[in-house]
Every structure is written in structure tokens, then in C-alpha cells.
């Protein structure tokens, strides 16, 4: 190996070479005076840097550690999944409210659709689309599809909502669902209250 190893010399000096590269560097250094001089320079720089005095007048080790321990906050950051879980638990009431609001809105829309279907509005809208020209039908394809879907959904709702099932749905929406949401909120409230008590105890405020 005749070329100088300038590029690999620092890595060789720092003990970062292995295998073939290490053997090549060693062989080259045996025969190359210039590279040996460069290696010497690296050693000289390290010696000079390491001879420069370390920080002086420091706090004794035990005192330093005691100072750090005294300043340690009571709480540590939770690992990612625990943090997410905790945040999710804290946001539970909001989730319950959102769920309740969604079910209520869905119910209102469903009842509205059923009422519209009973009045025959869906059928007449679908029939109106049957009467317009082919080109207009293609242009208004989206509307036609919507009208047809609206019609079928209404038919399904009217067909499936017999007085018996409506009564069951009514019971569920008026009693079971609010009771379940209320119970979940109560459990959350109790757990929050308990967590507050534990925190107060840990912080020494009780």
C-alpha cells in the first residue's frame, strides 16, 4: 500500500479500525515516515489536551449529590403509553358527552328520515329523477344516487321501526343509555377524587 492513509489515520489512532483496514494501516505506517509523523501529531494533541487541568474548586462529591437529591422534583415524567393512558382517562367525561351527543344527533336524524319517508317525500324525489332526460340523469347522477339512497334508507327505517322495537329503543335511549353514561361518569369522578387524595398525601398537603 503506497498511498498515504490521511483519511483513515485519525480512526486508526482512535482505535476505530478493524480487519483489513487495520492491517493495511499498520503495514503502511511501518514504511511511511510522513504518516508516522502525522500519527505523532495526533498523539501530541491528545497529550496536550489531557494535560490541561480539569475544573477545580468543585463542590465535594457527597455534597453535590445531596444538593441534587434535595432538588429532585417529586414527580417523574411517565413513559409515553402511561402518559397517553392518563390523558385518555382525564378526557373521559368529554368522550362520554361526545358519545351521548352523537347518539342523540343520530337519533334525531334517523327519526327525521323516517318521518320524511312516511310523508312520501323520498319516493316523489326518486320518481322526479326517473322523468328527466338521460344526459341530465348522468349530470345529476350524484343527486339521483343520493335521492335513491335516501328513499331506501327511509323505507328501511319505517319497515324496521315497528311499535315494539320503537318502544325498546325508547327505553334504551331514555333510561339505559343515560344510566350507563352517568355510571361511567360517577366511576371516573370517584377515581379522580381518589387520585387527588393520593397526590395530596404525596405532596404533604394533608
Amino acid at each position, binding site marked *: 500500500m503506497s498511498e498515504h492513509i490521511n483519511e483513515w489515520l485519525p480512526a486508526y489512532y482512535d482505535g*476505530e479500525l478493524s480487519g483489513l483496514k487495520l492491517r493495511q494501516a499498520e503495514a503502511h505506517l511501518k514504511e511511511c515516515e510522513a504518516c508516522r509523523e502525522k500519527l505523532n*501529531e495526533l498523539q501530541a*494533541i491528545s*497529550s*496536550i489536551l489531557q494535560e*490541561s487541568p480539569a475544573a477545580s474548586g468543585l463542590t465535594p462529591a457527597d455534597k453535590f*449529590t445531596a*444538593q441534587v437529591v434535595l432538588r429532585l*422534583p417529586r414527580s417523574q*415524567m411517565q413513559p409515553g403509553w402511561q402518559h397517553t393512558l392518563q390523558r385518555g382517562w382525564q378526557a373521559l367525561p368529554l368522550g362520554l358527552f361526545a358519545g351521548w351527543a352523537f347518539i342523540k344527533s343520530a337519533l334525531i336524524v334517523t327519526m327525521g328520515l323516517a318521518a320524511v319517508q312516511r310523508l312520501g317525500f323520498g319516493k316523489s324525489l326518486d320518481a322526479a329523477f326517473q322523468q328527466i332526460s338521460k344526459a341530465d340523469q348522468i349530470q345529476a347522477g350524484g343527486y339521483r344516487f343520493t335521492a335513491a339512497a335516501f328513499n331506501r334508507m327511509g323505507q328501511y327505517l319505517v319497515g324496521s321501526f315497528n311499535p315494539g322495537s320503537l318502544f325498546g329503543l325508547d327505553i334504551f335511549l331514555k333510561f339505559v343509555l343515560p344510566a350507563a353514561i352517568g355510571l361511567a361518569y360517577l366511576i371516573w369522578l370517584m377515581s379522580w377524587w381518589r387520585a387527588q387524595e393520593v397526590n395530596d398525601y404525596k405532596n404533604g398537603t394533608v
Partner: protein
Amino acid sequence: MTKAMQISDPEEQQLIEQAQMGDRQAFADLVNRHRKGVINVAYRICGDAGQAEDIAQETFLRAWQHIPKYRPQALFRSWLYRIAANMTIDHLRSKKETVNIEMLALQSRDAGPELRLVEKERAAAVQQAVLGLPIASRQVLVLREYEQLSYQEIADTLEIPIGTVMSRLNYARKSIKLSLERMVEEKCLSI
């Protein structure tokens, strides 16, 4: 299994796990183990012993808060040095890195009776050369020359590629050689 996991000290690993569960005594043991290294990293980067000690304290406080998130993909020492290096940089930026070179020489002269004047001046010149480096190169040089970290450990600590570690280290050494040319020549003759 990562390189860090292969060479991690089992006793230290146990202390880390205990500290992650909130054990303050275990964390105090970790502070004792790494105090010197953390102070040294901060001191060699910022050049002020008092500030380095403050930065080291803040480093350990931050480490305590974040230790539950620590995973042994990198050595614990590298993780601590990363925090220390970042805090030192923040500190230098907040102070706009106004290291007064003249004051440094004066401080060095008053540093203590144990060093002779020539040695003090040499020490001040070395410190001046190190502090004259750009922060990025200075960090790499400090971790390699003073803490003897491998290229991989430096890369883990500073979250940079190994190629960048090598180029920054080369740049730092070349700059030091230029700044301390006479000293390096004298040293070369004595080796």
C-alpha cells in the same frame, strides 16, 4: 442485542431500573457515578467550573424527570452526556457565548498556587484553543479526548452520523494544531 446493551454494567442497569420506579437513593448512586464525567463535559465545553457545576446539577434534575423514558438503546453515560451537552449549549446561547479570552488568562493566573506561571499560561492557551472551536466540533472533541467515548458512542450521544463525528473531530484537531502549533511541535519531539 445492541452494542450498548452488551456492554452495560448490570449493577448500573439495576440502579437505573430502581430510579425509573422513583427510587431516589438509586438515583443518588447514579449521580455519584457520573458526576465527574458530566461536570467535565460541561466544563470543557463552556470553560467555567462554577457554571459547569450548575449545568451538571440541572442535567441530573432533567435526567431524573425523564429517566422513566430512558431505554438502554444507548449507554446511560451517553444519554446523560447528551443532556449535559445540550444544556451547556443552551447556557452558552443564553449568554451569547461571551467567553472573554483575556479574562480566561487572568483567571488562570489566579487559579491556584500549585501551578507555575508557564503551566498556567499553557493551560489558558489550551482552553482558549478549545473554546475557540465551533460548538459542534468542540462537543465531539470533548467527548473523544476527555471522556474517551468511541465514535459510535459520540454519534449516539449527539444524535449525528459517524461520518459527521469523524469530520468534526478532524476539523477540531486541525484547528487545535493550528492554534497550538509550537506546543504540538515541542510535544512531538518529546514523544
